[in-house]
């Protein structure tokens, strides 16, 4: 199976967010067209209990398959993946997910930087990072890594973010190619 993905690569979008980002996802997901030609990976800061409420909530807003990541699961186009609570989410060179429960980064696990940086090394120019609303500096370094590896960095327009600290951090570090509102996010992902 892994060979399939080696010979037929597909775009990957990693979406990171913290406070105020669930509201964005609830508006963004219904706008996505099925079948999705990319793989969508969502990393949001959440309570560190292993409950499935968030994936159920998000799955209600889309007809695209949406699931919490299982360890060693292959990354496939057409699926929306949610990082599980209390683990960092990484990608292996054979395009499978790895989970890691090492130290919190930026006071959080999962950390957006960890997934952004790991995916950048694997997907290069096939990768887009999208950073949403949040009150934490997580994500900006990861966007830099994505750009360095040839991928694209999108940041939610601060004036549309419930909490604009996270987008502002990315902007201050010049870690973006484009500032986007929700409609532009939908159009971008549908256009991949």
């Amino acid at each position, binding site marked *: 199976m892994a060979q399939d993905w080696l010979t037929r690569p597909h775009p990957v979008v990693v979406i990171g967010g913290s406070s105020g980002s669930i509201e964005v996802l609830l508006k963004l997901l219904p706008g996505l067209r099925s079948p999705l030609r990319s793989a969508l990976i969502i990393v949001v800061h959440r309570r560190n209990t*292993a409950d499935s409420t968030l994936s159920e909530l998000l799955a209600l807003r889309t007809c695209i398959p949406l699931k919490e990541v299982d360890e060693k699961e292959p990354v496939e186009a057409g699926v929306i993946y949610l990082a*599980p609570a209390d*683990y960092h989410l990484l990608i292996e060179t054979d395009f499978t997910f790895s989970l890691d*429960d*090492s130290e919190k980064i930026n006071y959080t696990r999962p950390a957006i930087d960890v997934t952004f940086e790991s995916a950048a090394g694997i997907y290069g120019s096939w990768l887009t990072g999208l950073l949403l609303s949040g009150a934490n500096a997580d994500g900006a370094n990861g966007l830099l890594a994505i750009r360095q590896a040839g991928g694209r960095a999108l940041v939610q327009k601060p004036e549309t973010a419930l909490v604009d600290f996270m987008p502002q951090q990315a902007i201050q570090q010049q870690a973006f190619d484009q500032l986007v509102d929700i409609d532009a996010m939908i159009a971008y992902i549908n256009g991949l």
Partner: protein
Amino acid sequence: MISTDELELLLTDLLDWYGYDFSHYSRASLTRRVDRLWNLGKFPSFAELRYQIRSDANYAERFIEGITVNVTEMFRDPSFYLALRNEVLPTLTAKPFIRIWHAGCSTGEEVYSMAILLHETGLLHKSLLYATDLNPEVLDRARRGIFSMTPLRQYAESYRLAGGTRDFSDYYTAHYGYAKFSDDFAEKMIFSTHNLVSDSSFNEFDLILCRNVLIYFDKLLQEHVLTLFDRSMGPLGYLALGSKETLKFSSLQPRYKQLNSEKIWRKIG
């Protein structure tokens, strides 16, 4: 950042020079951890990092500790401990002697959590907790039973959510920012190095806990370790894994039955 080829060179060195086999560990996690140590050690090049590991055994020990994940906490996932308390331990009360193995115990927080459960269910006096890890250094810390006070408030809350009804602070004495747990617990614990990759079964157990260790292994090594646990498991013994780990897809699955919602399986065949 370390390249794929450089990482393979380092892993070969660690096996050839020090006998630690990381060849079946997940590369994504190793890459991050080696990068971190590379930055911390301020090595100007890969060659210098490699030379330091090969020429300095003390550094190599610390390096090995640094690339393995030693993060742990007391009563992590309280609902898991609640299931141990209410569903697992009651089935062991009739046994004259209870043997428990914590595989990959790190600094011992889970072992002390277990001892507290055994104490409260009246089983500690006839229990023995074997706690093993790859790293001698973390075992030294576990043996002392001394933990930082900082996360203790959260541990007390997790203890309560795990069905604990006593005053958590009765179990330790606080001293200059550290908490020393009662020696009554440590008396029931045996700490020893054990490498899940290369060491074999050493006893028969009623309960084996190995939580958030398998996520760092590839599927081959996972199967190897699960088989090791199976061979170390007494009849009707229990195997407990981390919240994202599973026996599904392993050769053990047909002979193990999962408890309702937690990652606990009982050997039935």
